């Protein structure tokens, strides 16, 4: 069998083990396993590395436990603004997007930018126009707004209103 492999990550944080219930920990592990195995199956069938990383990241974006896609963090305006990038090591082609809303899987938008434009990086309205042109799946804003993220945002928003230097101290990458 030819070599193939995949690795994935979600956030790097300072959360303590005691802050995570066994149920929550299991949910994290299940979410990681699901994404890892989704990407691995693509490789096992002979799919490309680009297909595999897109598949794994889409799975993580669809899981509200992780800070991307559904469950993305909220900006100071209480909006979800998502960023993504993909790079193909074969030809060093790359695609990226930032400040996009309502795109269910920003990683697939990044891939479309890589493969279907002459550019590397589209942002904001232009990226959204391109997502619509490519008929990527869009979701209504409430789809992305998880209760836990809203609570995090309210806590941080209040803290920063009282103490502006607290900005971004709550680092949810």
């Amino acid at each position: 069998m030819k070599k193939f492999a995949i690795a994935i990550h979600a956030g790097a944080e300072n959360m303590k083990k005691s802050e995570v219930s066994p149920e929550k920990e299991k949910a994290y592990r299940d979410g990681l396993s699901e994404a890892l195995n989704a990407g691995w199956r693509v490789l096992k069938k002979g799919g490309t590395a680009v297909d595999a990383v897109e598949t794994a990241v889409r799975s993580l974006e669809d899981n509200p436990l992780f800070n991307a896609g559904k469950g993305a963090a909220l900006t100071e305006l209480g909006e979800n603004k998502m960023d993504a990038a993909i790079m193909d090591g074969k030809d060093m082609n790359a695609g990226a997007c930032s400040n996009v809303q309502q795109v269910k899987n920003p990683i697939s938008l990044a891939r479309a930018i890589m493969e279907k434009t002459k550019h590397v990086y589209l942002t904001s309205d232009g990226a959204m126009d391109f997502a619509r042109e490519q008929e990527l799946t869009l979701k209504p804003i409430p789809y992305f707004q998880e209760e836990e993220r809203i609570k995090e945002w309210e806590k941080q928003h209040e803290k920063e209103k009282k103490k502006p230097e607290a900005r971004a101290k709550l680092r949810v990458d």
Partner: protein
Amino acid sequence: TVGAVALDQDGNLAAATSTGGLTNQMNGRVGDSPIIGAGTYANSEVVAVSCTGEGEEIMRSVLAHEVYALMKYKGLSVQEAVDEAVDMYKKKIGGDKGIIAMDPNGEVGMVYNCNLMFRGFRQGGDDPVVRIWED
């Protein structure tokens, strides 16, 4: 932030990273994830890299490309490269960071300098490995 790196059966590497950014981040702020060379980088001859953590520090470290440079020009293994990269600008830049990387042999490098990084890997027909803390 979430991300993935992979090696396919044709020997090609790829990297992908996606993020919702920081809670209550300034409107218009863009982090490291979509910046090629900072949060994401791949060259099939050397390595594929995806980063997570404090975006400003990762951008100023050009972290993903740093891993590539350490392997290509210093000849480090993938694990040695991520270990060196994560603390390379510790005094000047600092920041909580996590890196995953994969070399053309499917070897995995993983590192983080904070309490945890949600992570996993699976190589060929081996069983999957999923980790959160230093377990």
